[in-house]
């Protein structure tokens, strides 16, 4: 397992940085809801309450990442923390997309899952794979161009299954791309990607490595694609 650079202080700094945005949102939306002078209708209030729930859920996901970040400090402990088993990657992706669709719509985006093969069984831990996909899709939603689609795709490559998460947002510079590829084992901010500390990507990388997989990324004509390669399960599929 790749050891994180910077240690706990880097994780705390990254977490504090990333938590500021959703906590600020929660604070501001709460103020609006309590403010009778804004003249909001009941329908508008309800909409903001729903937004509050979504932002709270995102904040909790971030806190979960911080917790995972600490656990990832001790690779040995992590190796025993969960078991690998055959997991249906397609089902995990579809669950994540279903759960994050309301959140994406708040950002005027759609989520789409594409696969041209039958459900793929990968060697993974379902909960951990769920965290990996949630993190990548959440990241893509925040960086995607409004009105565009975040596309999640699954494809089989020989002994591996590749999960792609593509956004059409601001292109990562070649400098940042090289830096990320060389050093995914530490939280690191990206220029042009506001409010990010790289904590989520660091967690995704460590979790993917712990499942025997690998994380990669590439630039498209418009946007960025992150991909996770996982081992195909040898267990006979019933599909």
């Amino acid at each position: 397992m790749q050891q994180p650079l910077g240690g706990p202080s880097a994780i705390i700094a990254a977490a504090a940085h990333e938590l500021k945005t959703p906590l600020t949102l929660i604070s501001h939306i709460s103020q609006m809801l309590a403010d009778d002078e804004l003249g909001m209708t009941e329908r508008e209030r309800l909409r903001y309450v729903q937004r509050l729930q979504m932002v709270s859920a995102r904040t909790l996901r971030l806190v979960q990442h911080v917790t995972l970040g600490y656990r990832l400090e001790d690779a040995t402990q992590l190796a025993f923390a969960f078991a690998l088993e055959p997991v249906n990657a397609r089902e995990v992706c579809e669950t994540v997309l279903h759960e994050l669709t309301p959140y994406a719509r708040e950002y005027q985006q759609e989520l789409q899952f594409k696969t041209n093969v039958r459900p793929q069984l990968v060697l993974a831990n379902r909960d951990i794979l769920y965290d990996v996909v949630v993190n990548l899709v959440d990241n893509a939603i925040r960086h995607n161009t409004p009105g565009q689609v975040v596309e999640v795709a699954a494809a089989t490559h020989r002994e591996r299954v590749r999960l792609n998460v593509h956004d059409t947002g601001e292109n990562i510079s070649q400098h940042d791309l090289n830096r990320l590829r060389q050093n995914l084992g530490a939280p690191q901010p990206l220029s042009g990607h506001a409010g990010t500390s790289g904590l989520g990507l660091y967690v995704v990388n460590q979790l993917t490595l712990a499942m025997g997989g690998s994380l990669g990324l590439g630039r498209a004509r418009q946007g960025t694609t992150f991909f996770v390669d996982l081992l195909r399960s040898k267990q006979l599929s019933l599909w």
Partner: protein
Amino acid sequence: MVKSATILIVEDDLLLAECYERWLQAGGYRTIIATNAQTALDVLDEQLPSVILLDMLLHGANGMQLLNTIQSHADLAKIPVVVCSNALPKHLPELAPYGVRIVLDKTVLTREKLVAAVREALL
């Protein structure tokens, strides 16, 4: 008249932008939202707002780049800017040459503070 002033809100988080819009409209101001620097420049091509409310950490070109562009146009450089950000690496004296009149800490912002800052920037 101050109360009819138009405020350009440059904020890449739509929820926050909507919040500031509601607060400012309740204060009697008209508002325009731009969720990135390029859209802000497109708006500025069409009309001159009375104040620009600017988040510094934007996706793509950031607030500092937008401030630089604004300062390079004589008509835009006169527009007072209120910076509102979670990350404030520069203090007001350093931002003042870029037309920034007031710096607000987004994490402790309230409707009253925002409206008071815009009112002050308009003076």
